């Protein structure tokens, strides 16, 4: 017994391992939960009416009275920030959940039907995917007119294809698994095979994509708002708030804080999604 490097190495403690495995996802979950609470409680915790115009107090820097200062119309930035979380989170969840629902339906049907149905649905998916999402969403949003609902609809049009692709691929993988073949041989009905055998085993990656994607949708929605296509003024919304402040370099607080809000909430979803992915990946889990 000679030579270096033969001694037992330090084994990471239980805490270190748990941190490595769940730490990021935990932080992400905490951030997301925090913002959800804010959105829920905004009417009670916001110190001012978010739309109350007070021109006498316009563009005040952050102070005890106005934690994040006031904007060009003298509205309280902090209250607007809190209220803005409602629109952003709602839009983000609506786009992703509805998009995932529709896309998954398309993907599963394509995978199950195969043949020309599959071909047609997948060509349609490819067609939508050949437009850069934000440009097409922008065109549709412009066509539909300004408004939260219209913007969400525009985003939905470009949002579902990735879920169709992923769910089809997942369903196809599961379809070839021997336990699904066993279910066929046992004489189970297609709906039961899809619902009881394929879906539960295919759902993991979809959950990860949904989680990561809520952040994406929030950024895109805020972007469209920033471009003037999201919400109808004077609704408090983070993207629109950044737009209102983008010329105000001296009054940096007007644009900075709503942007930070977007950054934190999206980061939260990304942490959570990344953590979920590591956790669901059996290769990563065994380490």
């Amino acid at each position, binding site marked *: 017994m000679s030579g270096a490097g033969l001694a037992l190495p330090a084994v990471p403690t239980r805490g270190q391992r748990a941190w*490595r495995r769940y730490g990021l996802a935990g932080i992400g979950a905490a951030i997301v939960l925090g913002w959800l609470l804010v959105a829920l409680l905004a009417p009670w915790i916001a110190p001012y009416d978010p739309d109350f115009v007070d021109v006498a107090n316009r563009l005040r820097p952050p102070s005890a009275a106005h934690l994040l200062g006031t904007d060009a119309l003298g509205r309280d930035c902090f209250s607007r920030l809190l209220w803005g979380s409602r629109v952003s989170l709602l839009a983000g969840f609506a786009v992703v959940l509805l998009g995932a629902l529709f896309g998954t339906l398309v993907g599963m049907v394509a995978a199950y039907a195969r043949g020309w149905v599959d071909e047609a649905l997948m060509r349609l998916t*490819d*067609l*939508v995917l*050949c*437009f*850069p*999402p*934000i*440009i*097409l969403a*922008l*065109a*549709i*949003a*412009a*066509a*539909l*007119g300004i408004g939260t609902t219209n913007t969400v609809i525009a985003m939905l049009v470009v949002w579902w294809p990735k879920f169709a692709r992923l769910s089809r691929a997942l369903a196809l993988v599961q379809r070839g698994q021997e336990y699904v073949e066993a279910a066929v041989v046992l004489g189970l009905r297609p709906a039961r095979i899809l619902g009881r055998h394929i879906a539960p085993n295919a759902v993991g990656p979809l959950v990860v994509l949904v989680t990561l994607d809520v*952040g994406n949708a929030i*950024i*895109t929605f*805020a*972007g469209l708002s*920033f*471009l*003037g*296509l999201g919400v109808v003024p004077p609704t408090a919304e983070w*993207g629109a708030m*950044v*737009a209102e*402040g*983008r010329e105000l*370099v*001296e009054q*940096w607080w007007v*644009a*900075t804080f*709503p*942007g930070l809000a*977007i*950054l934190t909430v*999206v*980061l939260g979803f*990304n*942490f959570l999604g*990344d953590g979920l992915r590591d956790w669901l990946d059996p*290769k990563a889990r065994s380490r």
Partner: protein
Amino acid sequence: MIRYVASRLLGAAVMAVLATLVVFLIANTVPGDPVLAQLGDIAASNPETVREWRAKWGLDLPLWERYGLFLRGLLNGDLGTSIASQRPVLEDILQYAPATIELATIAFILALAAGIPLGIAAAVWRDSWVDAAARMVSLIGVSSPTFWLAFVMLALFYGGLQIAPGPGRLDPIAFPPPDVTGLFLVDSILAGDWEAFHDAAAHLVLPSIVLAAATIGLITRTTRAAMLEAMGQDYVRVSRSKGLPERFIVLRHILPNALIPVVTLGGLAFANLLAGAVMTETVFSWPGLGRYTFRSAAALDFPAIMGITLVVSVSTLLVNLLVDLSYALLDPRVRR
């Protein structure tokens, strides 16, 4: 290989035609009435004027005939006339494209140059502080709203520290180099105008960093995942059993395999850069396609929006084709 390219081109052409159909349908079946938008309230209240106007623009024809006209116009390079600028949309697009191409190219190079080494380092020193740092950089990159990042950079380095030039492609008082390609960096080199080159380069720093931020995150993540995937493959252990140096194994055996999925990211990165360009150019007053898009959208300038959508989706198709072809170069398994 030629057969493959030919059939791919044909497929892309079919998709492009279908894309025009989508664009056409969006433009022609949306609730908003172009009559109102084009003629204004007073004229629209006169039924005779409206009828004439509709006949003039072919709006009284059935949908499929209008699509035929639309296609014929396209073949003649007619994307319609912009309401806002009163100029042909194609002319507008050609005028604004070079600024965007210059910015996006620099951003893309930046994203690759930062993202790939970062991803490699994160994978090689997996679970170390390098990995954690790379993860944070990439997560913050993809989580930052571009328009906000642009504002913060501008406020900090131009407004606050005053070490970066302001918005625009050049100083307001400077003259652009003689127009050859429309790319200021190239044109200034061609003209030997080093002052303009320096000015243009300095103005590119902030916007290209902002534009690259999200893509850096994407590329870092993908490179890291692909490297780890490749590192777990049997051929890596075989390489070790052959007594090859570790550095050689990483660079010559693992990396070529890991780059394959990174290349497939090209199409996605392109779409990313376009989306980012709309925001970045708006904040940096960059006279490119992105700002043109924003202005058209804000003015509900439909012909312009449709034209942009079409041009951009066709270029996306071409980029995806290029990605698939370079994929074939990198991966002998898909070569024919």
